[in-house]
Structure formats: structure tokens, C-alpha cells
């Protein structure tokens, strides 16, 4: 019935200029209008459809269409992979975590997102005549840490160059960057399957290493917002903010790996405090260079020492991981399409918008910008002392891979849990967990306690129990009132079988709701006051309770006894726990008794 409505002739659809893909609806009203000759619709099916049903069907149809096109883009299996090889190089621009800008003492914007526009602007940032750049040396620390974390060789001497182009987001008419002599070269980043690398890229190895050609420091541009029809509002707060540009070698061969590389670099930079804002907040952007070649053949182009590549195109300003993957897939397919049809790829700059199915051309070879790079005469060369580099290397914080490994080994957490907890709340969650484990181990008199067992238990509680409470009460980690000591007390009591698991969760929830420092009772007090201490039921007590419940539910008992529905045993256990006094019935013991009584 409704399918007839969808398959309307295209001619009728075009009459609805502003209703996109909506189809005309046959209903009582429209039929009436038609009978009076008052519509422009040619022919509609005779059936009438209630409005609500029609709207629902339309929504479903649109969703199915959208899904269909998405599947094409997100095709996990690359249909061309046998014949064509994709090569990708990534250029990441990351905002450094600094107090002030790169060449002026104006405060950096990263600190406050809600600041007024055009307030954090020095005279140099606004290109006032006569002003000169002044290198702010504190910006070197995060940049150096990023270089060291990525395994680069830090150059003792590097230079500052001007990259000229006219744009309203560049008041000086040029960007100060490090074109000829970047401050760091020849690094690498190692990725494993858990980081999201495409399996085919690993080709049997445990990990792959993507080379980093160089890292350079440069200025960020001002922020512009478009106001229709053609005016732009410019905010110079961001102009001159320090960026590092990280250029990888073209050694990436799939879109998933490219996104994984960017994700891993972002995590790495956050862990050494080099960059505090990620892609989600606009603090990290990526440009990708994409080329294809027939498998086994060798192209005429090379970059950074990697040769035999095809002609590449550059896709600029990708601002999310999904965008990176989708844009590379779309560009790969476009290039393969052009080459298979006998065409030639031009070295262009292309753009990608969210939800698009193909990249759009921004600049061709004719429109190629001549940046007229030249050394900036106002700035002396940057000379970095090796004592500083050595100091930063030895005091570098633990890198994410090492943290995850350590948490797995020392605390027995699974790889997934370790990765999750290390990434939460800027490392505070993990710190909380580690402190709690230490406190629990202290309380345990027995030195033979297995640290990994305690670790696993505490990890679960911090991640899932506390995490769950956080989620339901919708507060941030910083506002959590439960202290490590309190959690350690709860878990210690649990381990010593002083309380049941259910009681423990209940205690946690209670403590979570209490405001901080206002005469917070200790865990021991709570247990005593609530009479929650496990008073283990005697054997007869268990049997009596179990027996009573079994007698009240003969059908259930029959199901277990005769039909062998083992699952229902737990139902009995639940009933026992509920029936018994708080803190008296232990589920494991209860289960044993029920199973025994029901003869299974």
C-alpha cells in the first residue's frame, strides 16, 4: 500500500520544490482537493493512508536510504584491494599546551574556551606596524616532549621561515613556520592490532612502525566564522597560537590505519601534556595525502625517501577520526575510478565535508599557491641545548603503551579495561585505583595476598561500580566524594567476607550521595549502624529458608528437578537473598544449598 506512494513519477516530485524527497500523500483531504480540481498532482493512488502512518513510512524509507549510502562508504571490505594499493601520508596540526603564544606574550586561548573574542591579542598578533616577533621560550617544552615521545632526533639548530599568502585569518600576510630546518626529524610511532590497525597492514607481524619525517613548530591562524551572505567575523585570539605539525612518511596503506595513527598520536601527545585538547574540541586537525598504484607496479613519485608512488592529492582540514577514514576511502575510490577509465590523476588539493560521498576540488595545479618561503630575518635561529633534551627524556611521563602494559601485568586487568581506565579523567581514575589497591593490600594482614586478584577486583569497582554511579548521577570525576580510603574499606570488608557483595554496592551508593566533609561516617560506622555485618546463616538456617521457598513455588521446583532448567536455581537464590535479613545470605552458599535440595 505505502510502496505505491513512494514510486511516484519523478515529474510529480519536482513540483514540490522545497520538500526534497517527500512524496505526495493520498488522503481524504487531498482526494477532496483533487475532486474539486484544486491540486497540481497528476495521479495518486486511490488508497488513503493515515497521516501518522505515512510520516512513519517516510522516516523509515529515508533511514534505509541513508543507511544504504553509508554502507557504500563504510565498506569494510575494499573491493579494489587485490589490484590497487593505497598509500597515505598524514600531516597533523596540534595545538600546543602553553601559557602564551609562540611569538608574543599574549595568553594562549586553550586555557579558557569561553573568553571574549579579540581580548588575547598582542600588538604583533594584530600585525601592528613596527612590531617584531619574540620567541616565547616556554613553548619549547611541550614541543620537545612531543618530539621525544615520537622518538625523533632533536636538531640543535633550527630556523624560522615565512610562508606568504594573503588571507584575512593571517594578519601579517605570512605564517612563521619551520620550512627549511624543522626542529625534529626521523621519528616513528608503533601501532598494534589493538590500536585499530587494519589486519592486512600488519601482514602477520605483531606491530607496524610508521615513520615520522619531521616535526616543526608554527603559528596558528585566527578564527573566522562565516555570516551569510558573504561576510566573515574574525577573532584574533587564536592567531599566533603555537602549533606543531607532525608529518608522517607515506607508509600507511589503509584508511583504518590512518585513523588509528592519528588517534594514537593524539593519545600520546595528551599523555606527555604536549597537547591538551583533542580533535573533538578542535585542537587537532589532520591533512592527508592519498595516492594509489597498481599492486606490484611502481609509480613515478616519491616523498620523504619513499619512492615508486603514484600521483598524490591532498585532502585538507579533516576534523574527526571518522572523517579521516571516510575521506580516504572516498578519495581512493575516486582515484581508482579515474585511473581505470584511462584518466590521469592531477596533483590537487581537495576538501571533504561531513556526509559527502566524494571529495571536492579546492585548488588545481593552476591555482597552486606560491608561498615564496624565505628565512625570517627578525628571528634568530633556535638553538636547543642537549642538557635540556636529556632532562626531558629522562623525566618523560610514562607513555600510554607502557601504562596499559603495566596495569595489565601488575593489576591483572584485561587489555580493554586497562586501556579504558588509563584514558579516563586525565589519569586520575587510574591513580585512584592504584591508591585504593595499595590501601587494601595494607589492610590485609596476609602477605600472601595476590596483588593481581585485588587489582582486578578494585579495577572492576572503580571502572564499573563507581563509573556506573557517576553516569547515573551525571557528575564529573572531580566531583566524586568517595575517597580511596572509603572504597578500600568497603573492598577490604568484602574480601574478609564481613559483608556481602550486595551490601558493598549499597554502601558505595550511600557514600556517593553524601556531601563531602560534612561529618561523613566511616565505612565501619555505616556497617555497624546499619547492622550490615554478615552474620552467616547456619547450615540449618539455609536449608530451612531454601525449603520454605521451594515449597511455596512447586512449579519452579519442578522445572529445575524434572525439566533441568538450571537457570531457575538462581531465581531461588535471589528469593532467598531477598527474604533473608540484609547481610545474612551469601549467594554462593545459597546456590549450593538449593542445588543440593533440588537434587541437581
Amino acid at each position, binding site marked *: 500500500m505505502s510502496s505505491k506512494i513512494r514510486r511516484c513519477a519523478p515529474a510529480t516530485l519536482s513540483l514540490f520544490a522545497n520538500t526534497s524527497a517527500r512524496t505526495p500523500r493520498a488522503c481524504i483531504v487531498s482526494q477532496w482537493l483533487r475532486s474539486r480540481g484544486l491540486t497540481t498532482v497528476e495521479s495518486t493512488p486511490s488508497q488513503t493512508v493515515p497521516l501518522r502512518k505515512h510520516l512513519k513510512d517516510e522516516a523509515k524509507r529515508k533511514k534505509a536510504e541513508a543507511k544504504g549510502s553509508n554502507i557504500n562508504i563504510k565498506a569494510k571490505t575494499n573491493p579494489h584491494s587485490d589490484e590497487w594499493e593505497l598509500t597515505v601520508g598524514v600531516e597533523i596540526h596540534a595545538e600546543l599546551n602553553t601559557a602564551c603564544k609562540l611569538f608574543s606574550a599574549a595568553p594562549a586561548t586553550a586555557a579558557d574556551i569561553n573568553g571574549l*573574542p579579540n581580548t588575547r591579542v598582542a600588538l604583533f598578533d594584530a600585525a601592528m606596524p613596527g612590531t617584531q616577533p619574540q620567541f616565547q621560550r616556554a613553548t619549547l617544552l611541550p614541543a620537545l616532549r612531543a618530539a621525544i615521545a615520537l622518538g625523533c632526533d632533536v636538531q640543535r639548530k633550527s630556523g624560522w621561515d615565512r610562508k606568504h599568502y594573503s588571507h584575512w585569518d593571517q594578519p601579517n600576510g605570512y605564517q612563521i613556520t619551520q620550512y627549511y630546518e624543522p626542529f625534529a626529524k626521523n621519528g616513528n610511532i608503533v601501532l598494534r592490532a589493538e590500536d585499530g590497525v587494519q589486519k592486512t597492514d600488519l601482514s602477520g607481524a605483531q606491530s607496524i612502525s610508521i615513520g615520522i619525517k619531521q616535526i616543526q613548530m608554527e603559528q596558528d591562524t585566527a578564527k573566522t566564522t562565516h555570516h551569510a551572505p558573504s561576510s566573515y*567575523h*574574525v577573532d584574533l585570539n587564536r592567531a599566533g597560537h603555537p602549533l606543531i605539525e607532525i608529518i608522517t612518511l607515506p607508509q600507511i596503506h589503509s584508511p583504518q590505519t590512518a585513523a588509528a595513527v592519528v588517534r594514537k598520536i593524539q593519545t600520546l601527545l595528551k599523555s606527555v601534556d604536549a597537547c591538551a585538547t583533542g580533535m573533538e574540541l578542535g585542537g587537532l586537525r589532520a591533512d592527508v595525502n592519498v595516492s594509489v598504484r597498481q599492486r606490484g607496479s611502481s609509480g613515478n613519485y616519491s616523498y620523504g625517501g619513499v619512492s615508486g608512488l603514484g600521483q598524490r592529492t591532498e585532502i585538507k582540514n579533516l576534523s574527526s577520526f571518522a572523517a579521516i577514514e571516510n575521506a580516504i576511502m572516498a578519495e581512493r575510490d575516486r582515484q581508482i575510478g579515474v585511473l581505470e577509465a584511462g584518466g590521469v590523476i592531477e596533483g590537487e588539493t581537495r576538501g571533504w565535508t561531513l556526509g559527502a560521498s566524494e571529495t571536492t576540488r579546492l585548488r588545481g595545479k593552476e591555482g597552486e599557491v606560491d608561498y615564496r618561503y624565505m628565512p625570517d630575518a627578525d628571528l634568530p635561529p633556535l638553538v636547543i641545548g642537549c642538557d635540556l633534551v636529556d632532562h626531558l627524556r629522562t623525566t618523560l*611521563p610514562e607513555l600510554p603503551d607502557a601504562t596499559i602494559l603495566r596495569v595489565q601485568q601488575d593489576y591483572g586487568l584485561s587489555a580493554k579495561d586497562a586501556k579504558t581506565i588509563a584514558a579516563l579523567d586525565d589519569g586520575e581514575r587510574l591513580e585512584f585505583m592504584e591508591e585504593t589497591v595499595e590501601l587494601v593490600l595494607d589492610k590485609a594482614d596476609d602477605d600472601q595476598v595476590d596483588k593481581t586478584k585485588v587489582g582486578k577486583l578494585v579495577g572492576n569497582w572503580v571502572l564499573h561500580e563507581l563509573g556506573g554511579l557517576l553516569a547515573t548521577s551525571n557528575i564529573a570525576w572531580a566531583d566524586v566524594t568517595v575517597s580511596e580510603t572509603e572504597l578500600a574499606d568497603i573492598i577490604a570488608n568484602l574480601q574478609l567476607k564481613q559483608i556481602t557483595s550486595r551490601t558493598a554496592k549499597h554502601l558505595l551508593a550511600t557514600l556517593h550521595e553524601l556531601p563531602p566533609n560534612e561529618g561523613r561516617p566511616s565505612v565501619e560506622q555505616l556497617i555497624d549502624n546499619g547492622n550490615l555485618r554478615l552474620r552467616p546463616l547456619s547450615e540449618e538456617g539455609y536449608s530451612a529458608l531454601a525449603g520454605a521457598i521451594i515449597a511455596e513455588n512447586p512449579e519452579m521446583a519442578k522445572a529445575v528437578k524434572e525439566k533441568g532448567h538450571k537457570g531457575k536455581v538462581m531465581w531461588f537464590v535471589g528469593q532467598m537473598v531477598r527474604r533473608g535479613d540484609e547481610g545474612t545470605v551469601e549467594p554462593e552458599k545459597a546456590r549450593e544449598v538449593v542445588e543440593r535440595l533440588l537434587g541437581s
Partner: protein
Amino acid sequence: MHHLVRCTGLRAAGSLNASRRSAEFSTASIARSQKESILDIEKLLSRPTWSVSSLLPPKDSASDAPEVTSKQLHHLLRLSALPPPKDQQEEAKMLSTLSSQLHFVKEIQKVDTAGIEPLRSLRDETMQGEKEAELGMEAMKDALAQEEVRGKHHKRIRRRRDHTAAKQEEDWDVLGTAQRKVGRYFVVEGGKDK
């Protein structure tokens, strides 16, 4: 410039090797040259021995610099964000000026600069100068003091977020020179004129 140094005044110093840097000019060589001949300074300085016009194309004959086409001129003007010429006359004038400038540049390019690093600016390039400019532990002392180590088990280095940020940069009227503004924003017209 090597060529110029050789041409100007130092030739009068006689035995002085032109490629030696002026910093190494010693009193000994002055004494030597004074013995050779009594210089008539007035006479020497009365007639210039060299003029920059030697680097410009001679007025009568055409220069041997390459032709600049009108298309190239317009491209260069656009790159430099300069206005295009109003009429044919102005364009012809621009082209001829550009042509003599190119001739000048070609003359300069005839200088042999093999093995000489381009000068970027006049700086202290001595060992001492480089040492003073080096950013090592001492120079970065204050910046390092702005960081702290957080955590006992999972140690992380974090920059201290001081909200008493530097105020001196914010005490001028940023929008004061704006031709157009809306609220606290500069406004730029992005539409094409034609």
C-alpha cells in the same frame, strides 16, 4: 657582496687581500701601505670609482633580461596583493621598471657565491653568541618551574594552570583600528566584487 667589497676603497689599501674580512684589518697593514705611497685622500674621494648604475641596463640599448609578459605581471601583482595597472600606459611603465629591475638582479647574480651561506640577518655568530642564545636547563628554568608532577602511582607532568594570566598584553584597544566591526569581531567582506 664580494664584488663590491673589492671595488670600494679597500683597493687604496694596496697590498691588502680583498678576500680578507675587514675585521682582520690590522694596523700593521695600514703602516705598510702608508710607507708605499702618500695618499691624496681628497683626490681619491673626489671621483667615484663605481656606481650602481653599472648594474642597470644602459638607457639606449635594450636589456638582455627576459621578457615579462602582461599575464606574468598580473599574476605577480595578485600574489603580492597589489592593485592591477589602471591603463595600458601604466602597465607599460610597470613592465619597463620590472625589466630594468630584472637586469639589475641578473647583474647581481653574476657574483660567484659558491660555498657562501646566504646572510639572513646580522647576528652574533661566534661561539660565545651561540652559547648565549642556547636554550638549555638554565634558560628554561622558569618555564620548568611552571609545571608540576601529579599523582603518586601514576605520575604525570602537567602545566600549572594559573588563572592570574599576564595582563599587560590585553591593555590596548584591539579593535580600535578596525574599519568595520560587529560586537567584538572584525568584519571582512568575502564576496567577489565583480
